[in-house]
């Protein structure tokens, strides 16, 4: 209705004023068209911006949460799985009155041990610990001597994340075999026999000097694994 009234009003004008009026109206329309356009932009931008802001917030929250989780979890897991290499000076050893079996039972370690405690003449057990933490075992060593035959058996145990410099000699154990389902590496020299294997979170190093027979170190491994 309003549009019709405006149209009639224009038509009623004389030609000169009619053109002038039309020009004014065009200008006015152009001005009025700007506002509807800007108003439309204003109305669309808040919606898009809001959606974008929301998405950003969600993403930021997720990332932050992930980072927080990593910051908490990573140090713990890395600490638990970190290997270490210890040298003389990192640790100190002391002769102890208990044997490996007693140590394992008292500390719920579930270590394997060589049960010759009633068969040999001398047993010497040494506990090597971190200089900074007496409760942090680096390795435990047990020597068993047969005074009649001169056979000397040495059993050394570390956890499977610890490497110790004095045990590098066992890197020469190149012969692989499977004993009682456990992978064992051995080597025989003219003077002694060596064996090493890993079981239940611990690494075992054996040395036999003046062995009673050629298969002695294998027999000892079998005997130790038999108590598992």
């Amino acid at each position, binding site marked *: 209705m309003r549009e019709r009234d405006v149209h009639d009003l224009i038509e009623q004008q004389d030609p000169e004023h009619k053109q002038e009026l039309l020009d004014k109206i065009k200008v006015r329309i152009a001005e009025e068209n700007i506002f509807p356009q800007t108003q439309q932009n204003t109305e669309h931008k808040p919606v898009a911006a809001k959606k974008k802001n929301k998405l950003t917030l969600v993403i930021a929250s997720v990332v932050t949460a992930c980072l927080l989780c990593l910051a908490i979890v990573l140090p713990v897991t890395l600490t638990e799985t970190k290997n270490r290499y210890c040298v003389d000076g990192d640790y100190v050893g002391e*002769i102890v009155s208990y044997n490996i079996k007693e140590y394992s039972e008292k500390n719920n370690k579930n270590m394997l041990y060589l049960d010759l405690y009633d068969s040999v003449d*001398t047993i*010497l057990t040494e506990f090597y610990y971190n200089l900074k933490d007496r409760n942090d075992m680096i390795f435990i060593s047990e020597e068993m001597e047969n*005074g*009649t035959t001169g056979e000397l058996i040495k059993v050394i145990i570390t956890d499977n994340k610890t490497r110790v410099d004095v045990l590098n000699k066992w890197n020469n154990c190149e012969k692989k075999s499977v004993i009682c389902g456990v992978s064992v590496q051995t080597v025989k*020299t003219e*003077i002694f026999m060596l064996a090493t294997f890993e079981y239940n979170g611990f690494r075992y190093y054996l040395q036999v000097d003046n062995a009673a027979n050629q298969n002695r170190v294998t027999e000892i491994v079998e005997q130790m694994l038999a108590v598992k």
Partner: protein
Amino acid sequence: MTKVRKFVLLPLLLVFSMIFGVATFTAVAETDIRYADAPFISPRSTSEKIYYTNRIEKLSNETDGKCPRYRQLTNMTNACGTVAGTTIVGFYDKYFPNLIPNWVSYYEASGLYRLQDTTYVPAVMNELYTLMRTNVDDVGVSENDFKTGLQTYVNNRGHNLTYTSVRNWLGKLNFDECKAALDQNKVIALLTKAGEVYDISMYDGYDAIDPITISGAHIMVAYGYYQVEYYNANGLFRTDTYLKVATGRSPQSLAYYKIDSNNLNAAYIVNIY
């Protein structure tokens, strides 16, 4: 004095003074050396492997029953002198049982020396630790404290002790004298600067030599010797000569010491009778 004599005598006097001065300085400097806790460092990399087509052990001998393998007590620091002294006492206890009262230091069936116990050997160590004045003037012991302390312990047990040097004026070990002493069942005290001992593993076709660095002055006891020649297609390519030593440390209680090591401060045949 004629000019000719002056030209001859004065330089001779100068040279003599220099040698005497150096020798005196060296002797004084060596007595100041302290023997204390020295970390044993084993390399992480694999051993040196000596491959051969033929291998001959030219010389090899040990004292009867080898040698005690004592190690330091936990309550002691800088006690390598103490442990070496106790090792020597334990060695001769086989022949003079009152050196370690109430304890037999070896297995009668095999003649091999026992590992230490928790009562009698520690008692010897504690006494020697005091007699050697360990950690009194400075860390560890001096050469003089080591020798005097051990001699006092032996004398207190009614026996005598002599030290015979087997180190020449150039600072080198006299191997022939060492060999003769070891053949006569006498042990040798080695007082060394920082240096290396070796762990030798003999395999089929090669020997693996693992060096162990002793990072400070240390005292060990030699109980044997070992000389090996290595041959390949070109003939003899290497000869190594060692003394077998009780290191006083655990778990590397026995090792090999190369006789041409340039780290010897002193070496003495220790005779107890």
